[in-house]
């Protein structure tokens, strides 16, 4: 029950954060954190809920969040095959890959919808997204592991 409330609070905080930081995605890093903690089943259900939320607050055609969030477990398990998720290098590599994937997916889908791809934002947004992944995965994992 505590875990459910924790993720509900995280979702609310992430949405507030997304409102403050414009185009930043703070739910994707939450999904990665969930995978990093080994909560695969929770990640599945949270992923579905967050896809619906992101599509709801967004204003492009349905499917973009599905593609972006679908990439997160793929990169996570692909990297896990090479490195242990507790490793700092894993977090950095995963964050870079996830941020690049998010930007690439947005650019592609905007172009497919006949919208200018630069609406997705420039490299600064990609860097900010990568940092968001790193901070949330590392900070969240440290906080949760210490509290146990």
């Amino acid at each position, binding site marked *: 029950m505590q875990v459910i409330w924790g993720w509900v609070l995280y979702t609310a905080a992430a949405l507030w954060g997304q*409102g403050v930081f414009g185009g930043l995605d703070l739910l994707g890093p939450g999904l990665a954190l969930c995978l990093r903690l080994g909560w695969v089943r929770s990640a599945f259900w949270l992923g579905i809920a967050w896809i619906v939320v992101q599509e709801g*607050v967004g204003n*492009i055609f349905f499917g973009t969040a599905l593609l972006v969030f679908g990439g997160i477990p793929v990169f996570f398990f692909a990297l896990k095959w090479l490195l242990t998720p507790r490793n700092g290098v894993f977090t950095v590599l995963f964050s870079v890959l996830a941020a690049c994937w998010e930007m690439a997916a947005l650019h592609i889908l905007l172009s497919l919808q006949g919208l200018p791809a630069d609406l997705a934002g420039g490299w600064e947004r990609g860097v900010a997204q990568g940092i968001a992944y790193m901070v949330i995965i590392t900070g969240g994992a440290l906080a949760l592991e210490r509290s146990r």
Partner: protein
Amino acid sequence: MADTGMEFAGWVLVPGEWVRTRVDDTWTRYVALQDMRAENEELRARVDTLNAALAEAVEKGARSERLEKLLGFVPPSAWTAAGARVIGHRMGPLSVLETVLLDRGSRHGAVRDTPVTSVRGVVGRIVRSGPSFSQVLLLDDIRSRIPVLGRNNRIPGIIYGQGPGKLLRIRFVPLNDPMEEGEVVITSGWGGVFPKGLPVARVTRVHSSELSLFQDIWAEPLVDAARLEEVLMLGRVSPDPGTVLESSPVGPVSTGGDDPASEG
């Protein structure tokens, strides 16, 4: 002898009395300081409370001023206006268009293509509507197009959004038609979404090129959408007095019901 005893007692008592007076003074001062400190803390707390109350009163004053202006807005004839609060702007990675989120949805009559305005000018139109909230596509979004007229010269054109922070562009104004810098453009009502006569933008630059049949005209929006807190949603009423159209979007009103790509 008696004097000597008295003198002795006096000399013994004087320093004692001096010490007692000092101790007494110090104690009194200490107690007074303690009281003063407590009073000071109490006063500080009161100042904080009063500052908070003052800030709240100032905010309430500013809000009531804005709301008074909104109440003073007279909608075009056969249209009604209903207020809504802006509760968010861009909310995530998929929110790439210039939109704001309103606290009114289809339950309150806010439906797709409802015109949204403020007392200063057009804000945009509703593009998505949930039961309790709706999303407004702003005037400066790249997908926004609104048929307009020059207020002075009555020259028609279509105003295009160019992105946040950029000037709007008025297209399809023939070379020989006069449109002046500083002229306000208003909605023409021809797209069927917006009523006629709402101010939209002020012309800032007019350029005629020999290579084109039309003038290059740039205009600045009259509304800074990023700072909006309250807006008005407009809706059409039936021409028959007292009768309200069934697909009423804002209380006793209805939508323009036009192709969303054509205007807004």
